[in-house]
């Protein structure tokens, strides 16, 4: 599950040999408002769909503001492989997850939820929050069961945290119990001049080393991902070589303050029509 994001950050390469079918632990994508969570989540969806790993189920409270333009993978696969659903309340979200086994659609290989904080804003209690987290895991586990030997279903959930502190997030400690892997997105003051630069830190477990990347948004809306400088020197030569050609995805970055992208809204008309709810 963490691997879906790691593939995006590693420019399409899995964490290591033999891990292709292992989606890793459920992952919580944490970041302050407008820290490109949606863009990364969508990149993970595109990556999974484009690689032919199977359909992706993308849950979000409202249609995305903009969609990718000309990424080859996007053009070929995203419309067919990414299914959007827009549960408008925590009740609808729970209904969708609880009835996932009744859906006739093909079984997803990746389950994504954007904007968990919007559902938590309905102020569910401890038990309701735990139930939502557990039901997300249970649904992904059920999808994995349906996929059988052909693969496991990954789970990535984006949660916006206020400012840089996590103290404002209700039930964060509880959620972390269910999501052992976390990726934090933090604004990077040392970014490339006027470009938006973020630092993505991925930890897949208490005992796993932290991996970091620099995520930069160029004026054209292109997302450029490179290993964090401090780590680049530690990579093996072949890793260094391949990651030098950084991941480039053209995404409408609706949740970054600046620079303003010409992409916003261009493909908005397509999103609502894909709703199955």
């Amino acid at each position, binding site marked *: 599950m963490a691997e879906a994001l790691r593939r995006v950050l590693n420019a399409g390469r899995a964490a290591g040999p033999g891990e292709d079918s292992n989606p890793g632990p*459920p992952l919580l994508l944490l970041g302050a408002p407008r820290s490109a969570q949606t863009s990364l989540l969508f990149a993970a969806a595109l990556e999974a769909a484009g690689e032919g790993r199977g359909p992706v189920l993308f849950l979000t409270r409202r249609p995305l503001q903009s969609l990718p333009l000309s990424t080859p993978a996007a053009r070929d696969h995203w419309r067919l492989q990414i299914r959007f659903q827009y549960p408008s309340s925590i009740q609808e979200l729970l209904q969708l997850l609880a009835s996932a086994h*009744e859906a006739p659609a093909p079984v997803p290989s990746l389950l994504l939820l954007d904007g968990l904080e919007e559902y938590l804003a309905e102020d569910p209690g401890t038990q309701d929050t*735990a139930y939502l987290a*557990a039901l997300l895991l249970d649904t992904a*586990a059920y999808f994995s069961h349906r996929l*059988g030997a052909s693969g496991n279903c990954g789970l990535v959930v984006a949660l916006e945290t206020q400012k840089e502190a996590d103290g404002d997030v209700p039930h964060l400690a509880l959620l972390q119990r269910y999501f052992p892997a976390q990726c934090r997105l933090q604004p990077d003051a040392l970014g490339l001049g006027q470009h938006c630069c973020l630092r993505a830190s991925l930890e897949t477990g208490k005992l796993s080393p932290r991996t970091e990347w620099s995520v930069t948004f160029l004026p054209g809306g292109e997302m450029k991902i490179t290993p964090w400088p401090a780590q680049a020197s530690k990579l093996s030569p072949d890793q260094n070589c391949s990651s030098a050609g950084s991941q480039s995805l053209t995404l409408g970055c609706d949740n970054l303050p600046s620079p303003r992208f010409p992409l916003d809204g261009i493909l908005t008309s397509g999103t609502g029509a894909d709703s199955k709810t």
Partner: protein
Amino acid sequence: MPTRPHSSTSRGWPGTPRLSACAMTRDDVTPPRPAFGLPRAKSSQPTGREVVRRAMAVTLPEVVEELLSEIAAAVRDSARIPDELLLSLKFVFGSSAIQALDLVDRESVTLISSPSGRRVYQVLGSSGTTYTCLASCHYCSCPAFSFSVLRKSDSLLCKHLLAIYLSQLLRNCQQLSVSDKQLTDLLLMERTQEA
């Protein structure tokens, strides 16, 4: 205090392929136990650690996995849990251990499944209340889980979740088949009950 499994409670289950990630697989609760003394195919018997790993996406501490693994081995060999392991169970889980064993003894754990293959556990509590436990991760609808496990982190598991683990090892899990729609209602009723 249960010292031997209740082989008569397994009601059989059609052979199905082993599940990969989804928990508490059917083969853990399937075939009725053979009579004592008969050799059993070792490969078909999951170890305690396998049961634990398959059971819960949320992992248990190593020491608990080890303990459940030892219990599984003991049950395989002697069809009972030796006293020293019962003491270890009590040491790790406190009073929940006795209560969980009591629930297992009373055959209170039911695995509910639908034709879709989705499953959920229900545990009939000592007070007569039925609690729902998700099969793939640690979740129980009982107040103790919410308070002692989630809020205070005093306990690793509530007695109902521990009873599920133990009923897996002792193979006395009840089974119930429902329709896909009924399973959805069951999962949502859980939410209604909380509200």
